[in-house]
């Protein structure tokens, strides 16, 4: 890839009058030797999977394999349809859709890791709800996914997208940054505005720990995906409004890695700290262990 940093992306896009998506597609073709139509088709197939997961989570009763979670997407969706919400129906719809995909994930349904399964709700939540709202066609959404991918590529290689390595900021945080930057581009913002949105979003999740109850991708992961979608929309709005990240976005990415490294292992996907070790978190873990033992006997 020709770019290693978010600044590289902005420079290359400006020099050659490209969108982030166009740059990403060009680089992907060069890197893999796979033709442009095939690369675009693969992303288009992935977008269909995302839409199916949203639909499933909103229309079916999803219960996780552990039985701990499920049904919140429908709850939020019904609430949105019933009238006045606090954050507005667009943000609430994005939240419902993000919850839907994360619940489908927890029920062993089909999803796209964006960038991981633990954070798989945020991008579909933002994308599918915005597509309905603005009437965009699928081609536009697929370009948006390439823009999100370019941003994620920089974050993954300069920082981390693994909760075990860098805490939840690396998974949910990265997904929010990716969704925010892509949203700016899909709404015709400039690459520079998109990059500021990424930095603004990441600053808001810095330090977020990975503390899943019983080690499962459920509590608090699903809820964080729902709220993450709303954060992404808000960060995109800041970027489009012309708000700049006073700390350059690449420096925010770098410091995310440092913050992740200084997190104790209790807070990096081991279920030995945070919410997993609250009295209720411990009780749930114990209950699951007991049930599993019964299943074995």
């Amino acid at each position, binding site marked *: *890839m020709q770019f*290693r940093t978010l600044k590289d992306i902005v420079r290359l896009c400006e020099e050659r009058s490209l969108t982030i998506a166009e740059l*990403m597609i060009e680089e*992907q073709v060069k*890197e*893999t*030797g796979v033709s442009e139509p095939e*690369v675009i088709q*693969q*992303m288009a*197939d*992935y977008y269909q*999977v995302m839409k199916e997961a949203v639909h499933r989570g909103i229309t079916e009763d999803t219960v*996780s*394999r*552990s039985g701990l979670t499920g049904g919140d997407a429908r709850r939020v969706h019904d609430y949105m349809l019933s009238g006045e919400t606090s954050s507005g129906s667009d943000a609430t719809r994005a939240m419902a859709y993000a919850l839907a995909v994360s619940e*489908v*994930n*927890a*029920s*062993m*349904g*089909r*999803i*796209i*890791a*964006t*960038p*991981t*399964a*633990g954070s*798989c709700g945020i*991008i579909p939540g933002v994308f599918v709800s915005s597509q309905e709202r603005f009437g965009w066609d699928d081609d536009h959404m697929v370009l948006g*996914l*390439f823009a*999100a*991918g*370019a941003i*994620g*590529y920089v974050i*993954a*290689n300069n920082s981390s*997208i*693994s909760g*075990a*390595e860098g805490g939840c900021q690396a998974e949910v945080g990265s997904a929010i940054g*990716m969704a925010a930057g892509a949203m700016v581009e899909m709404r015709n913002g400039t690459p520079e505005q998109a990059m500021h949105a990424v930095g603004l979003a990441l600053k808001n999740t810095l330090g977020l720990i990975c503390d899943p109850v*019983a*080690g*499962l*991708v*459920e509590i608090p992961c699903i809820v964080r995906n729902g709220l993450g979608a709303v954060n992404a929309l808000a960060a995109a709005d800041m970027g489009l409004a012309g708000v700049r990240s006073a700390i350059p976005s690449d420096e925010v990415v770098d410091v995310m890695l440092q913050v992740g490294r200084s997190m104790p292992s209790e807070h990096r*996907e*081991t*279920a030995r700290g945070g919410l997993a070790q609250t009295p209720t978190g411990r009780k749930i873990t114990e209950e*699951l262990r007991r049930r*599993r033992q019964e299943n074995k006997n």
Partner: protein
Amino acid sequence: MRFKNVFNIIGPAMVGPSSSHTAGAARLGRAARHFLGVCPEHVKIVLYGSFAETYWGHGTDLALVGGLLDYDTDDDRLPDAAEEADRQGITISFDKGTGNYPHPNFVRIIVQHGTETAEVAGASIGGGNIEIHELNGFDVRGSGQYPMLAVEHTDSKGVLADITRTLSDAELNIGFMDVDRKARSGEAMTVIELDTAPDPHVLNRILQLPYVTRAAVIDLK
């Protein structure tokens, strides 16, 4: 760069709930299936670290079994893999491993069909990506990102040249390569990651080479 392209970030398509504990596990199971070359009759799975602690809630067990049935990470049949394996009469045991292991998500899979046995050990390193650490006790590495040719042979002069010549005659390009031997002039293993998968013809030609005792293609695409 640890992540090489856009589909390492957006993707893979997978059945949840965890890219490392489910998708990665499916790919490791599938690697064992491909290494054996046929569907196994008996399977012994030894889980280590976080795999052993949290496999149940993540469906790691189902994903491993699904992989052994040659299911990809996004196969809808993954959640029912245990029933299907049962229906096919495959016996599977799960154990928690003891001793040292090189990664928090590590598994050892021993598969058997008739008199043929094969063993794969590997790690799930995040985002559905895997790293093969051992094949039949040989210390060889592979990423599973490319079709991988695994060749067992005796350690002697010219074997590698013969193998690579066969590949170049078939116009296959080598991306990465790793070799390990148990002793000088003893048994050895060569793994070669290729840009495109060798067809059965090429595999046959490799098998006919002098000193080659076993060859398999692990292709997780």
